[in-house]
């Protein structure tokens, strides 16, 4: 038992609360960054001049812009008083002298209106002195173009284990990136106030880092910059590192013009300028024993970092730490490196490299299962971690038995075995349409690998009237963090949910915050909010003890009432106690702080215990594939997922479902196509709009979609026994990819191993079906011949 995980009687956590902003959302009253700009008088609009060359020295002539009516100022490198860099690695010039990717913003035009700024940008001329460019990962590998530090995770002796394995396979697995496509594009609004301070409302997951970058670009200290993140219209990792430069542009404009400046990328700008999920190219060799147990994995992972490092190193680190997914692999040698290409700088995206690592092992298992004649579900289950086993990076797999339990529960509740039998008979009589049902597990490590990020702060105020206002360092991007924090505060103070309000996330309320990322928002900030509330509650308990004539240790806070243990008639309203505390000069506000205990990590050798715990889950997906076209439908999805004891079940189910569908989009539909030709638009993103880059829509929603939260799942290491939920469910979508693979396999002969391109678009599936059919054709002929 731990105090962190214990829940009092009648907790507000665990209730299915609606999103705290739901009523604002549905009425359009919820304000986002550019909505605030729309309500700001005298605001200027910033518009970029984007490069049309993937790699070139540039000479920019901005004089034309000043001839356009309504253009107020053009921002260039010469205007930067501080550091001309948008990142923390000093490799991302904010105003570059070299275009490093097609779409790179070179200078920014400020206009009285968007139309003026846009026309001003059109009037800027750019001369390009072309340089050689690398667009694909393969081109970078061939050219030996890498950046950052390569890392290796190693355990045992993969080479000799491979040599002695009964079954050895090798292959290449490569897959594309994913555009975040948050519905709200990047946006900032900067205002320089009467005291010379900069206030930046920014759609950012990491206000403190945005603050630091704005300060270093402006050449001022952090105490002169306040960044607020009121709410985001989606982020998914895309606003962890990438908003900083845009905020700095807006702030620089505000400094130079004395006017408020708004910067909101339109969709095309956002999709062509900002980074995405990292594509990977992985070559691998795997060994299994005669019973299908994994023996060894040797892999080289090359991720496409794009033009600058951004978060590529930790993304790669997490990929290396997740290529085991849920499976015990005794001997591992996995080497990871970061390609440097002339594309936008790839960045965090829900899962942060984890999905890319999981992709590898699930692809391998899906490919080898038919080849060794083992049912893919059985192959997965038998290789699950057992209690006491450790990951290749040396961390004990806590609660490993949950994998088997969840798997078994899902298999039974989703009626998997009976349905697979039905599918088999359906397929036998259906030559052109095939179905399949597959299951995949997920195990995902929770905590930032970078230990320092695992801390958080909060500021809680109790007013004399008993109402409560909380601030914390986490940002709201739709995941419901603020709702959970309200539930945590109400639980800790024994209040009803409506008695607690939350103030916008600002760097002048809680400093030095970590990004709201790595699924850790509720764990970290919840710990801090709880700490602050408990400090106040302890002080109020003394006051209440005197009021109720009991020892402070026998005071209970619940439902807005403060009462004496065992003497419920002795009670006072929370507000009465608060008022009494004020009169007795007892402090009614507190700063809370939380750090995750027990973490250690040595990045040099990639060993340690970087994660507080693991989140588990499993999904069963049934699909139907049309052999004529390669189109498919997801017929049914069943999920059992482990969120610990849920803080807020409706929100958690929302995260599980949303994560699944987003993963489904990445694996099946969403395709980033770049011009890889040597033509004039080499390096241009060809799918740069909603009409060409297709997200899942209503038509991709599974016809039947059932999510169950794993029960009695208390996690001792997190606030009120809960677990993080943001990222892990994305990887449940591998069950859909594996089901498609199996359905494709049904077009082929027995034991046909299906290689499926990614994303598994209808065209990709079609080609896989053709390959399977071609493999079946000679087999059918052979069968016919032997029958004669």
């Amino acid at each position, binding site marked *: 038992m731990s105090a962190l995980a214990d829940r009092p009687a009648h907790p507000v956590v665990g209730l299915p609360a609606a999103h705290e*902003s739901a009523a604002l*959302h549905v009425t359009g009253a919820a304000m986002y960054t550019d909505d605030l700009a729309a309500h700001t008088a005298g605001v200027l609009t910033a518009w970029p001049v984007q490069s049309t060359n993937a790699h070139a020295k540039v000479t920019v002539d901005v004089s034309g812009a000043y001839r356009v009516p309504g253009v107020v100022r053009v921002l260039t490198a010469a205007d930067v008083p501080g550091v001309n860099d948008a990142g923390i690695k000093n490799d991302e010039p904010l105003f570059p002298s070299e275009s490093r990717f097609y779409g790179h913003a070179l200078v920014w035009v400020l206009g009285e209106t968007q139309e003026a700024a846009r026309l001003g940008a059109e009037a800027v001329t750019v001369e390009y002195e072309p340089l050689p460019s690398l667009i694909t990962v393969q081109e970078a590998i061939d050219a030996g173009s890498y950046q950052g530090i390569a890392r290796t995770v190693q355990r045992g002796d993969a080479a000799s284990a491979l040599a002695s394995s009964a079954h050895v396979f090798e292959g290449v697995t490569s897959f594309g990136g994913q555009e975040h496509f948050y519905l709200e594009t990047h946006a900032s609004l900067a205002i320089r106030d009467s005291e010379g301070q900069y206030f930046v409302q920014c759609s950012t997951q990491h206000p403190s880092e945005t603050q630091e970058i704005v300060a270093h670009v402006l050449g001022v200290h952090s105490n002169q910059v306040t960044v607020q993140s009121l*709410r985001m219209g989606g982020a998914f990792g895309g606003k962890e590192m990438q908003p900083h430069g845009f905020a700095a542009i807006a702030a620089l404009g505000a400094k130079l013009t004395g006017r408020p400046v708004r910067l909101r990328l339109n969709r095309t700008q956002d999709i062509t300028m900002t980074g995405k999920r990292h594509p990977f190219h992985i070559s691998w060799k795997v060994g299994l024993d005669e019973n299908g147990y994994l023996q060894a994995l040797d892999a080289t992972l090359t991720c496409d970092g794009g033009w600058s490092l951004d978060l590529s190193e930790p993304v790669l680190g997490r990929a290396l730490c997740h290529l085991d997914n849920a499976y015990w692999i005794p001997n591992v040698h996995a080497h990871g490196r970061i390609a440097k290409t002339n594309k936008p700088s790839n960045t965090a995206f829900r899962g942060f490299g984890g999905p890319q690592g999981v992709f590898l092992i699930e692809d391998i298992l899906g490919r080898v299962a038919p080849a060794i004649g083992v049912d893919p579900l059985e192959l997965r289950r038998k290789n699950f971690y057992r209690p006491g086993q450790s990951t290749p990076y040396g961390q004990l797999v806590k609660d490993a038995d949950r994998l088997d339990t969840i798997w078994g529960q899902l298999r039974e509740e989703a009626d998997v075995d009976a349905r697979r039998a039905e599918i088999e008979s359906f397929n036998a009589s259906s030559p052109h349409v095939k179905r399949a049902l597959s299951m995949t597990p997920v195990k995902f490590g929770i905590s930032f690998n970078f230990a320092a990020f695992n801390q958080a702060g909060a500021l809680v105020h109790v007013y004399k009237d008993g109402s409560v206002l909380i601030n914390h360092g986490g940002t709201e991007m739709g995941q419901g963090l603020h709702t959970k924090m309200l539930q945590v505060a109400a639980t800790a103070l024994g209040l009803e949910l409506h008695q607690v309000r939350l103030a916008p996330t600002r760097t002048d309320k809680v400093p030095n915050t970590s990004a709201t990322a790595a699924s850790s928002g509720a764990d970290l900030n919840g710990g801090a909010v709880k700490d602050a509330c408990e400090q106040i509650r302890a002080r109020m308990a003394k006051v209440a003890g005197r009021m109720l004539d009991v020892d402070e240790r026998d005071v209970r806070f619940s439902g807005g009432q403060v009462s004496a243990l065992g003497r419920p008639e002795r009670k006072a309203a929370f507000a009465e106690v608060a008022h009494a505390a004020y009169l007795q000069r007892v402090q009614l506000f507190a700063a809370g702080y939380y750090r995750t205990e027990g973490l250690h990590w040595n990045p040099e050798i990639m060993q340690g215990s970087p994660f507080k715990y693991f989140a588990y889950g499993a999904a069963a997906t049934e699909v139907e594939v049309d052999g004529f076209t390669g189109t498919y439908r997801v017929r049914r999805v069943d999920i059992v997922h482990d969120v610990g004891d849920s803080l807020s079940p409706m929100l958690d*189910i929302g995260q599980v479902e949303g994560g*699944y569908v987003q993963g489904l989009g990445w694996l099946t539909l969403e*395709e980033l196509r770049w011009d890889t030709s040597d033509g004039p638009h080499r390096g241009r993103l060809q799918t740069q709009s909603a009409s060409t880059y*297709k997200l*899942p829509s*209503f038509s*991709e929603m599974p016809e039947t979609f059932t999510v169950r939260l794993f029960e009695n799942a208390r996690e001792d290491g997190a606030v009120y026994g809960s677990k993080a939920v943001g990222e892990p469910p994305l990887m449940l979508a591998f069950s859909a990819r594996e089901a498609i693979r199996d359905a494709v396999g049904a077009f082929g002969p027995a034991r046909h191993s299906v290689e499926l391109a990614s994303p598994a678009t209808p065209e990709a599936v079609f080609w896989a079906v053709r390959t399977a059919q071609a493999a079946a054709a000679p087999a059918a002929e052979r069968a016919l011949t032997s029958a004669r």
Partner: protein
Amino acid sequence: MNDIVVNVNGSRRSLAGAAVHTTALDWLRDTGLSGSKEGCAEGECGACAMLVATPSADGGTAWTPVNACLVPVYALDGQEIVTAEGLGSVEALHPVQEKLAAAGGSQCGYCTPGFACSMAGEYYRADRTPPPADTEHEGGCPVHDDDHGPNGFDLHALSGNLCRCTGYRPIRDAAYALGVPEDADPLRKRLDEPAPEPLPTRAVVDGASFVRPRTLAEALDLLRDEPSATVIAGSTDWGVEVNIRGRRTPHAIAIDHLEELRTLTISEDVIEIGAALPLSEVERRLDGAVPLLSQLFPQFASRLIRNRATFGGNLGTGSPIGDTPPALLALGARVVLVSADGEREVALSAYFTGYRESVRGSGELIRAVRIPLPLAKLTAFHKITKRRFDDISSVAIAFALDIDEGVVTTARIGLGGVAATPLRAYAAEAALVGQPWNVATVRKASALIGAEATPMSDHRASADYRALMLDSALLKLYSTTRVETKEVSA
């Protein structure tokens, strides 16, 4: 300055000063109604959806959801619109808002106002009716198909709204939980009154004009005098040009309300469909009379787009990837062109002359399309896309065949996405006519479907895939006409 006024959420707001290219979305946001969001500015995401009061068949009004990002605000002269802010407030949520909020239908909330408007449009749809009570399962749950809820809610109403957070399930649950509007509901009551009349509009701002003529004759005169003018009906294509490619026109002529272009008549030997009739309206008025079009409509973009998009626009742009041309080609449709000098009719198969080019002369408008009757008995529309709803086709194939006693008597096959223009697969048609409808014939004809096509590789699909889709489409059609196909040796 001008005195043009739009009724927004029950209040009259002046357009004074807005540039003529301004979209309804930008105007709403500029005037402080920031609930409508821009997610894509090309009618794909629906975050800007708003309701427009349009005339209903019975002389009353329908609340029709459209993409505010595509509609020029001057096209709303004298019209009534409702945004999420006008549906309800935090203190008094509208029923769709209440259901969305309670079901967990909003996470980040950015797409939500648009969803609320699309859902409200369906909530108020006059012919939204639950399935009859006697079609219940044993469990007591009313029968409903994949795309309809037990309350008659058509999920296609939301096909033009994207959500990146929820995975859609809670939004669907919210939609399926909606009841019927109360009699006292002011937006419900509004349905009983006539929709606002279209007003003739003439706005000139900074030298650019937006004109809505009163009659077709007036429009044709304008076009004769200013042949370079941009003709705007639903603006679902032009709106994208304005937003994404920054195109501006000095002369815009709005024709979407011209009565002469909004007719739909079914006579003994022809169905005539007005060029400016929104596709949703065509779909409603045809009511299944043309099965091939019934198959096509749900696959044509999204409901939000179909509420504005027209046959005239789809043919007028001359795009090779428009969805209606392959179907209209298969139906043997003809195009009625009209100018100040008079009218002429051309076969659609002779209409397209090159990439985004046609025989339509300057000064000519498409007035109507004509579909000859009787229709072929066996028709099908195959659209190959990455996504099932609201995607642009990589290949579109429409079939219209008559099979009499096992022999193909007529065949027309329309193709889209495989050449610079939509085209007919004449060689395959010839290989079918007069032949028995069997695998051998189908295989022979299949090999010829692509004969006139020149598919290309692009970001949607490879040339090889497109070619093979042409090859297999007829086989796929055949497989659906024969439940049990037994191949016998020749």
